[in-house]
């Protein structure tokens, strides 16, 4: 069954898109990751224009974050104060990011920047996860060491300190603000929530307790991706709601499958598998960038710049 996507301006097989939504949704359910960093490149591989894939994926992440944050909220695992500071930075960052996106698009370089960003981030994350899961598998038998709650470093010397009760922190607001800005830019350009950067940054840079990290990250992702969706729709017209709805349906089903599957499987091996998948996607993008194209000339989208 084919459906014509009004913004992407092509027709797609509904079942392929639903399947993709279910697949990535299942992974999200198993690993508790957003999945945007897998979904956007996969959409591009399917032939969706990269700009549309990014804009639409931002829209879809709004939904999955809303769904995800409620569970964390009920358990009291959201630091709203920290989340608000992060989201102020995130809104600034994503606004700048969409503006940058528009300029790069007019220069005809947006596809390249999206692909290069993916190579860098998928490469780093894939490798880190792989190393982490191998270490975890080796550590499985030996007893775990206790880690300090957080360490004091130069970051604690910054001005504009603020108390974050839930996170048990007294730190400068500049740091979460800057992290928010950085992740906001990534979110706008890559069509991701940015949890895969935000979560490690919260744990290792801010020193937040892991219990509140995911909930707080999801909370701010809602607003940052909503801002990115709004601006992408207004400035670039690259949000395809028909595609977003198809992905949503798949993701809702997938998340359910994922939590069921996830509870029955070993964590470290699964994480290693996810790492391999991330690296495979990364490798495919690198290959596409390096291989000599059959056709050296391309028709520029929109034209006339």
């Amino acid at each position, binding site marked *: 069954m084919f459906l014509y996507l009004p*913004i992407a301006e092509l027709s797609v097989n509904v079942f392929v898109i639903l399947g993709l939504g279910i697949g990535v949704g299942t992974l999200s359910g198993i690993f508790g990751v957003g999945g945007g960093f897998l979904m956007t490149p996969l959409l591009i591989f399917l032939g969706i224009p990269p700009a549309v894939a990014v804009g639409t994926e931002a829209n879809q992440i709004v939904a999955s974050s809303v769904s995800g944050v409620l*569970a964390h909220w009920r358990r009291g695992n959201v630091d709203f104060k920290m989340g608000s500071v992060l989201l102020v930075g995130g809104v600034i960052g994503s606004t700048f990011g969409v503006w940058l996106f528009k300029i790069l698009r007019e220069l005809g370089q947006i596809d390249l920047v999206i692909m290069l960003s993916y190579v860098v981030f998928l490469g780093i994350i894939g490798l880190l996860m792989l190393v982490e899961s191998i270490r975890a598998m080796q550590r499985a038998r030996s007893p775990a060491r206790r880690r300090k709650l957080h360490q004091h470093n130069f970051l604690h010397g910054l001005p504009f300190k603020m108390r974050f009760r839930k996170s048990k922190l007294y730190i400068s607001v500049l740091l979460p603000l800057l992290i928010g800005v950085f992740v906001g830019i990534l979110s706008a350009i890559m069509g991701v929530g940015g949890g895969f950067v935000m979560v490690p940054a919260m744990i290792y840079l801010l020193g937040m307790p892991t219990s509140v990290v995911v909930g707080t990250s999801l909370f701010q992702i809602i607003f940052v991706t909503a801002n990115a969706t*709004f601006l992408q729709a207004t400035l670039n017209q690259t*949000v395809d709601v028909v595609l977003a709805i198809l992905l949503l349906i798949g993701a809702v089903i997938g*998340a359910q499958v994922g939590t069921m599957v996830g509870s029955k499987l070993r964590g470290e091996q699964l994480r290693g598998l996810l790492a391999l998948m991330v690296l495979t996607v990364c490798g495919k993008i690198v290959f596409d960038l390096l291989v000599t*194209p059959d056709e*050296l000339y391309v028709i520029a989208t929109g034209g006339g710049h």
Partner: protein
Amino acid sequence: MIWRAAMVVLAFWVWAGSAARAQPVVVDLSKDFVAITAGFTGTEVLLFGATSGYGEVVVVIEGPKELVGVRRKEQIAGIWINGRQVDFKDVPAFYQVLSTNSLDEWLPLAVREENQIGVEYLNLKPRGEIGAAEASEYRAALIRNKQQIGHYGQVERRLQLAGGRLFRSTVFFPANVPVGKYFVRTYLVNDGKIVSTRTMPLRISKIGIEADVYRVAHQHGALYGIAAIVIAVMAGLGGNALFQRR
């Protein structure tokens, strides 16, 4: 009997003669409107017509004219990136040629150039400063790209002739067909000269929800953005409710 047959032949001659004097070529399409709906995967339009009996027929289907940019990929540090862009004005978004016979054999070049019959005779002018050799490379690339996505004809298509007077053919518009106003021009050519031309309009547009979504997205981007966010938030809440019930 003979009288009767003669009368019929005479009547036909008179009819054909008058038809030929008035309209040496007549043509029609099975539809003058192609609707792109949610399930659109391309469509065929039947083109049919008749001539007064002398000469060959060539049909040109031309989509709306637009500005098209062509970029050349360049390898920088091993990575292929988009390099120089050349813009072309008045590029038909869609272009197909159908004819009763091989055009090279019977249609003089001057006529083809004047009427832009055949992709190689399209009047595609690059904008800005560009050398002739480079311009023709970009031009060829533009045509290749258009052929690749099915918007320009790869090969000359044949019109089927019946009885030397009736012709017909199907024209395929692919799923990615550009929307807008099309013209179907039919030329009757005799002895290397165009003796008659007929032009039929054809409109291709999105209709239904797809069209509304596109229109709102492009004309009311802010409203569209807000609607997209509202849909996503509701879907998120709905998804969460599903989880709770389990």
